């Protein structure tokens, strides 16, 4: 019997990048959430987070929002373990490995599965040397943001629809390599901060000879180019202990072009999704520990997405910076 979790598979490709940039002034030592941007003058960072994702229907390819079938309760849980390491004064690298649990209840069937998700390998260049966070703007140079330029390789370590799966509910990954180029700008003028993330990704075409465990006539498939824009604004509250709480609102817009099958455009593919996320990050005074909670919400309204599940994601995480 073949079951599938198409939403899970779709989502795995977006999971990390959809997570908002929950910077707690990373250039100043606050660390970050999913992007694993290592603070300046730090040698390493460990980040662990847990995502609880609940599905709430989907947008069809016309942008109309449809509900899931009555009696459905579809969820995915992800444990993300990340490690960032400073390679040089302006260079850092990181790896994020998720472990995924799928839990799907339909009126007509009930399934659950788990497995390793797709791994992300990141390399970042920091186009600045000193701390760019300021308390007051006294000269034009104080307005200079922290600029990061990075590349991410997504490695298909998850179980994809094209894998050797006993059940298609085993899918925890997309099955494609993808290379993303990312620019991330961040500026903190206490207590305010803002950031902009622009990312462009290209998948690598692959051969397919199996769909959900069943061998089929071989063909070549590639997913479409992916573009992500995320903007965020935040406010930091300084507690009496000099620990801080930073509240961040982030808006994301994701687009993926149509896939190709043997070089021919697949009109039934491609996706769009807009989402908003609210994050509260608690940092210790020395910014070595950051505890984060993020609620990411996609509006279940027409026009806010295409060909993609509508979900809410609650993320709880902690980062530890090693000086």
């Amino acid at each position: 019997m073949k079951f599938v979790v198409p939403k899970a598979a779709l989502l795995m490709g977006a999971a990390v990048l959809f997570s908002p940039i929950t910077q707690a002034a990373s250039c100043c030592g606050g660390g970050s959430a999913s992007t694993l941007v290592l603070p300046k003058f730090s040698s390493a960072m460990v980040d662990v987070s847990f995502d609880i994702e609940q599905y709430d229907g989907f947008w069809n390819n016309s942008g109309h929002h449809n509900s899931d079938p009555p009696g459905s309760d579809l969820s995915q849980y992800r444990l993300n373990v990340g490690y960032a390491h400073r390679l040089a004064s302006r260079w850092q690298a990181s790896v994020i490995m998720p472990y995924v649990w799928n839990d799907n209840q339909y009126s007509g069937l009930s399934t659950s599965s788990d497995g390793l998700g797709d791994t992300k390998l990141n390399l970042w260049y920091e186009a600045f040397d000193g701390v760019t966070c300021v308390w007051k703007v006294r000269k034009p140079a104080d307005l200079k943001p922290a600029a990061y330029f990075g590349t991410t390789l997504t490695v298909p370590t998850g179980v994809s629809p094209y894998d050797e799966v006993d059940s298609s509910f085993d899918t925890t990954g997309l099955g494609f390599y993808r290379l993303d180029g990312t620019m991330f700008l961040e500026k903190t003028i206490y207590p305010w901060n803002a950031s902009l993330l622009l990312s462009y990704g290209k998948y690598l075409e692959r051969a397919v000879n199996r769909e959900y465990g069943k061998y089929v006539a071989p063909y070549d498939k590639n997913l479409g180019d992916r573009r992500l824009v995320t903007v965020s604004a935040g406010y930091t509250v300084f507690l009496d202990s000099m620990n801080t709480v930073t509240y961040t609102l982030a808006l994301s817009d994701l687009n993926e072009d149509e896939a190709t099958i043997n070089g021919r455009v697949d009109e039934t593919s491609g996706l769009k999704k807009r989402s908003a996320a609210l994050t509260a990050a608690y940092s210790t005074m020395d910014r070595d520990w950051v505890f984060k909670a993020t609620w990411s919400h996609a509006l279940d309204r027409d026009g806010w997405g295409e060909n993609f599940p509508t979900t809410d994601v609650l993320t709880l995480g902690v980062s530890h910076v090693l000086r």
Partner: protein
Amino acid sequence: MSYAKNWLAVGGLIALLGLGGCQELTDDLTPDGGDQRPAVAAGSAGSQVSQLAPSFTALDSLGATHTLAAELASVDGVVLYFTMWCPTCDSHMSHIRSTLMSDFPNVTFMIVDYVTGSVSASRAAQLANGYASFTVLADVDHALLNAFDGGMGVTVVIDSSGLVQLNEDYKDGSKVRTTLEALP
């Protein structure tokens, strides 16, 4: 800080992660494009291409009974599309409606709903998703899912003699069209 040592550590980590240790977990890292479909005897009973399709009796979402034999009696072929009312399924079904159904009026297109669990729930999902005019088979006991090795997006084309001409994911629909054009 020894940067050279750090680069070495990261390189080792990448190698460990990706390319060695995970090989047993997945073969997506080095996809195999070879044709590994099992050989089947043409005309034997089964759900694979060239096999004689398993007969079935199923209720549609309005409670009417459909049998494969009856459907094939008056058309060039039958198309079964397995849906779970998801974005990909919706995209495929919309594509079937807009590009295939009118071009092949003598082919019966049927949606197989294997997730909602009852005839009434199947009808509700059908209406909610805007496919009121489709014939939706409520595969409550997964008989069709099992018989045709189905799953999300799986599309089965059966010709009028009962032979399976296609059984794979819908993808962009071009292979379904090619198969329908070649129906005897």
